[in-house]
Each structure stands twice: as C-alpha cells, then as structure tokens.
C-alpha cells in the first residue's frame, strides 16, 4: 500500500511511532497530486482543459508543507509530542484565511488577496501536526452546489467519473479526498456544502453543530448558517479531525464554550439501544420547475431509497431500534426559506468588497462611486451578484415582513420539527441527496434547480444541528450514493457512533 492510500489515523500512528517520516508521507501525496490533479484552477482558465484530471487545487503550497513536515520530523527526533495529526496531509477549502497564502474564495475579487492571519480551524489542525498541502477549489464564495461557478477554471471534477461534478461548494475538498490527494480536507457547510459533495464523491462529510467549530478566519457567506467541518475517507478520520478543530474560541463569540467529548472513544460505543428515526418527508422532494412555473413533487430514485433501507436494517442488526414515520412536515420549505435568509446574509457580507481595503480594484474610475460599481461589476461572478440583488430585494423595507421575517418564522418551524423528532429518537437517518452527481453543465445555469440538490440537508443548517453523510454504495452507473444522519445539538458523538457502526456492518 502506498503512503497516500493510508488513513489519517494510520499516518499519524506511524509517524508518531517513527515508522515513517512526515516528509516521506508528504512526498507521496505530492507525487499523487502531480499524477492525478492536472493544472490548478486559474482566473481565465479553460473549463474544458484536461478533462480526465481532478483539478481540485487552486494553490499548492508545497514549500510551506515541506517546512511543516520537517518541523514534525524534528519533533519526533527530539522526542517531543508532534500532535495527534502528526504528518497528516490536509487540504483547505480556499474560503479560509491562511497566513501568507492566497485566500481567494474562488473569486476574481479576492484573486490577489494574501491573508495576513490564519483561521482558527486551520491553526488548530496545523498545531496538531497536520501538513497543509494547499488551498482547494470551491464555488465562488461557496455559492453553488457543483463547483462550476468558481472563477478559477478548470473547476474540480468528480474522481469517480470526471464527466460529472464533484458537488459543492466544498467540491475541491471532496474531490481531493476521494482522489487520494489528501486524507483530510477542511470544508464549510451553509446548506449542505460539505455533505452533498461528500455524497457525490463517495467520502465522509460532516457539518458540526453551529458554533462547535470557530468561524474566525472563514470568509463569510451566511453568518447564521456557516459551519466549518471535516471531509475524510472514514468516519474515524472525520472524528479525529473534528476532535482537533472543535472548541471555544475567544475570537468568535458564536463558538460554543461547551466541552468537546472524546469522539474516537465515543465512536466505539456502537448503536445498541439507540433509536434511529426514518421520516417519509425525506424520501421525496418538492421543487419549482422553471419551465412550467409549477411546484413539482417527486419520489427519490429507488437505489437511493434502498441504500437508506439497507442501512436501517444493518443498524437494526447491531441493536439499534428503527422508528418509522417520524413527521417532519416543514422539510419542503427549507430551500425557499434558505433563498431568503442566506441571500440577505450574503448581501450584507459581500458589501465589504469595494476595491478600497483589499482585493480587486477596477481602473479608470473617475470617482469613488464609479470605482465601487466597476470593481464589483468586473470582479464578482454571476452567483455573488445574484445573491446580493436577491438579498437586497427580500430585505427591503416594503418586503421584509413578507419575505425575510416570514422565512425566519419558517426556520422556527423547521427547528421545531427536529425538536419534536428528537423527543422520540436519538438520530434521524435520511438520504444525503435527492439524486447522485449530475454531469458537468447538466444543471448549471438554473440557479433554482441547482439549489434543490441541497433540499434534504439545508434543514440541518436552519436548525443548527449536526449532520453527517457517509458513503453507501453506488448506483448502476458507478456513481456514489450517500446516506445521512442528523443528531441533536452538540451530539456529534452520536453521528460518529452510527457512522462507525454502519461502516463495520458493511
């Protein structure tokens, strides 16, 4: 087995034991990246270039990684503790600030931005011995579900079949992990942006409870929804990564001050005695058809429903009690509410990009207002513009009661659905996505239909609760299927128990 094929836990164990060096592990991963990734995304890049490559990266920071690996190996040689992630290669979604590296948000407006500080989540992972390989691609400012909206092209492709999208917005993260370029990646999830690409690429993706991981240094999209979280190839690796990242942070007032459990120990408790719920409301989707102007309801593909049923049976065999017919009546309103709440928050956050303090500035403007308009007009892509305009419209004084306040009330109802469900069960088991990955270009351009890829996940963001997608086989075309668990606030330990039990039952 090559070093790049090892899990994060196994790499850390071997590095800590002195069986392999961090440098050798790094070199193996850099060689793997050189072999499979192809050219990195770039402003003005050809979206069609090298169609058989992955294109996960925007910026490869190999020299910085070599220095980090050397520091780990020196600690080992000196008999010091190199940390629980000693020598484990890591990729970071390019929405996090990492000091002295380009931090672009996959947008032209930040293409030249060199971060002067490092995000808390990255800082903690590196302090634990992780080796950051570089920054991976995403939808521009995380606005999308396919990665195609990145200003840095070519955008990532699905390692299972490069004619398909990897999902988004953490598509570069999911693609890098699935393609064995890094065992761990740091992503963010605002409406499913960790879990949907994880499902599409056949890896594990977790959205922790809102506030479990600090957002300091995360370039903001929807500030009441954004959650940093892990992508990995196994549940154990995701647990290891969250263990290091989670916890209070004085630099983020929304970071929870609760103690962080020992997830790796909790994970081994299995599912005997846990009640796991199934809801019929997660086995259909309702979406708006732009062609007919009608709301359309459809059932999920049989292979996705079968994957969830199979998982329920396996967990039942391990001692879980399966509880059917949990009512979640407001599930279908998750996307419409998200269209309002996330756009208002995005519009607010995007007003800071004005060509004055950092980032892109248009040339030739005669006064300040023209500079704002030209800079933002030239450097924002269609998706940020769409969110700014929608956010301003639905929060305007004459519409805020009709749209924004109403969406916030619907959010209360979605939260109530979960509160009532968790009075009956410990976890909910659902499909991750309404379908498997779609082809590149298959949906892009229809911003409504694209958003509905997140319909089964976004409710967790509204409610703030944790959720985790894990691989559950593939369809007849060989495309991965994901199953998903929801748990109550701060009960990531239950997700790891169920996920690990499912892996062991496979």
């Amino acid at each position, binding site marked *: 087995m090559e070093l790049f094929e090892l899990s994060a836990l196994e790499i850390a164990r071997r590095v800590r034991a002195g069986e392999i060096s961090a440098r050798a592990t790094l070199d193996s991963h850099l060689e793997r990246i050189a072999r499979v990734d192809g050219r990195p995304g770039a402003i003005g890049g050809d979206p069609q270039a090298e169609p058989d490559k992955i294109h996960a990266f925007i910026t490869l920071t190999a020299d910085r990684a070599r220095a980090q690996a050397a520091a780990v190996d020196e600690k080992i040689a000196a008999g010091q503790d190199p940390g629980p992630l000693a020598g484990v290669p890591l990729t970071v979604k390019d929405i996090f600030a990492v000091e002295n590296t380009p931090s672009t948000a996959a947008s032209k407006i930040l293409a030249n931005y060199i971060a002067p500080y490092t995000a808390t989540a990255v800082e903690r992972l590196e302090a634990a011995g992780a080796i950051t390989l570089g920054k991976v691609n995403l939808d521009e400012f995380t606005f999308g579900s396919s990665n195609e909206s990145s200003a840095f092209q070519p955008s990532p492709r699905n390692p299972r079949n490069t004619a398909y999208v990897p999902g988004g917005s953490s598509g570069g993260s999911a693609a890098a992990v699935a393609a064995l370029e890094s065992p761990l990646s740091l992503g963010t999830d605002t409406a499913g942006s960790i879990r949907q690409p994880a499902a599409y690429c056949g890896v594990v993706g977790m959205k922790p409870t809102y506030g479990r991981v600090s957002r300091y240094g995360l370039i903001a999209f929807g500030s009441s929804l954004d959650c940093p979280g892990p992508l990995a190839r196994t549940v154990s690796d995701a647990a290891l990564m969250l263990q290091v990242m989670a916890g209070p942070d004085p630099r983020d007032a929304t970071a929870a001050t609760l103690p962080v459990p020992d997830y790796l120990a909790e994970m081994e408790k299995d599912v005997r005695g846990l009640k796991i719920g199934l809801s019929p409301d997660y086995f259909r989707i309702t979406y708006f058809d732009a062609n007919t102007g009608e709301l359309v309801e459809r059932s999920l593909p049989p292979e996705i429903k079968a994957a969830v049923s199979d998982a329920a049976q396996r967990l039942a065999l391990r001692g879980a009690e399966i509880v059917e017919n949990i009512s979640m009546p407001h599930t279908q309103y998750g996307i419409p509410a998200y269209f309002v709440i996330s756009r208002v928050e995005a519009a607010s956050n995007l007003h800071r990009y004005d060509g004055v303090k950092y980032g892109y500035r248009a040339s030739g403007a005669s006064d300040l207002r023209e500079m704002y308009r030209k800079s933002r007009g030239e450097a924002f892509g269609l998706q940020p513009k769409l969110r700014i305009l929608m956010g301003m419209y639905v929060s305007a004084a004459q519409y805020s009661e009709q749209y924004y306040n109403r969406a916030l009330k619907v959010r209360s*109802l979605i939260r109530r659905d979960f509160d009532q469900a968790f009075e009956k069960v410990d976890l909910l088991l659902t499909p991750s996505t309404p379908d498997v990955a779609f082809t590149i270009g298959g949906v892009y351009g229809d911003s409504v239909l694209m958003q509905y890829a997140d319909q089964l996940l976004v409710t967790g963001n509204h409610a703030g609760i944790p959720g985790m997608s894990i691989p559950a086989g593939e369809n007849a075309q060989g495309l991965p299927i994901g199953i998903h668990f929801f748990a109550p606030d701060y009960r990531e330990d239950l997700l790891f128990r169920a996920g690990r039990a499912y892996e062991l039952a496979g």
Partner: protein
Amino acid sequence: MNEEITPEAFAHLVDLAALELSAQESETLRQQLNNQLKSVHELLVIPLPEETPIASRGVEYTSTSSPAPRPDTAQSHPAPGRLLQGAPEVAEGYLVVPETPHQDLK
C-alpha cells in the same frame, strides 16, 4: 402570487448594490431572480400562527454554551502595516481612493 421584479425595480436594486452590469448580465440575473422569487412564494402559503417566533439562528445561545460578551473596547492591531499590504493603493499609511462625489443634502 405573480409578483415580478420589473426592469425598473431591477435597475434600482443594481444601483443600490453598486454593481455595473452589462445588458446581457442584467437580463440573465433578472430572469434568475424572478425564478427564485417564484420558489420563495412557496413560503407565503404556509399557515403561520401569529405567535410563531422568528429565529435568527437555529441553536439557542445559553449562558452555559456561549461566552460572555467581550469588553467593547478598541484594540490596536499589532501590525497595521501588514493589513495595508493588501490594499490596492496606499500613501503614507492611508488608503487612497478616487475623489468622493459631493452631494448637497436638501
């Protein structure tokens, strides 16, 4: 409900948003906005009891899960020069911008 964002309302939004758009971009964006608005209209048919609270976030903040507010005091950045390194134009430690338009308020 068939409310649509008209070209006039769209132009006003674009002005408020400080965006310069091409004609083609404007048409694409207005169409996408109206499609999204149709989806949003689904919210309007949900029976919402009057007392339904608004939720600005999902997870409740409590004194056991949230830090106490930090003191509202300004602190100097340890290296302001580093922050200015990313600015498009700087002179003598200040950000430089084009002329600010003057407007008399009535």
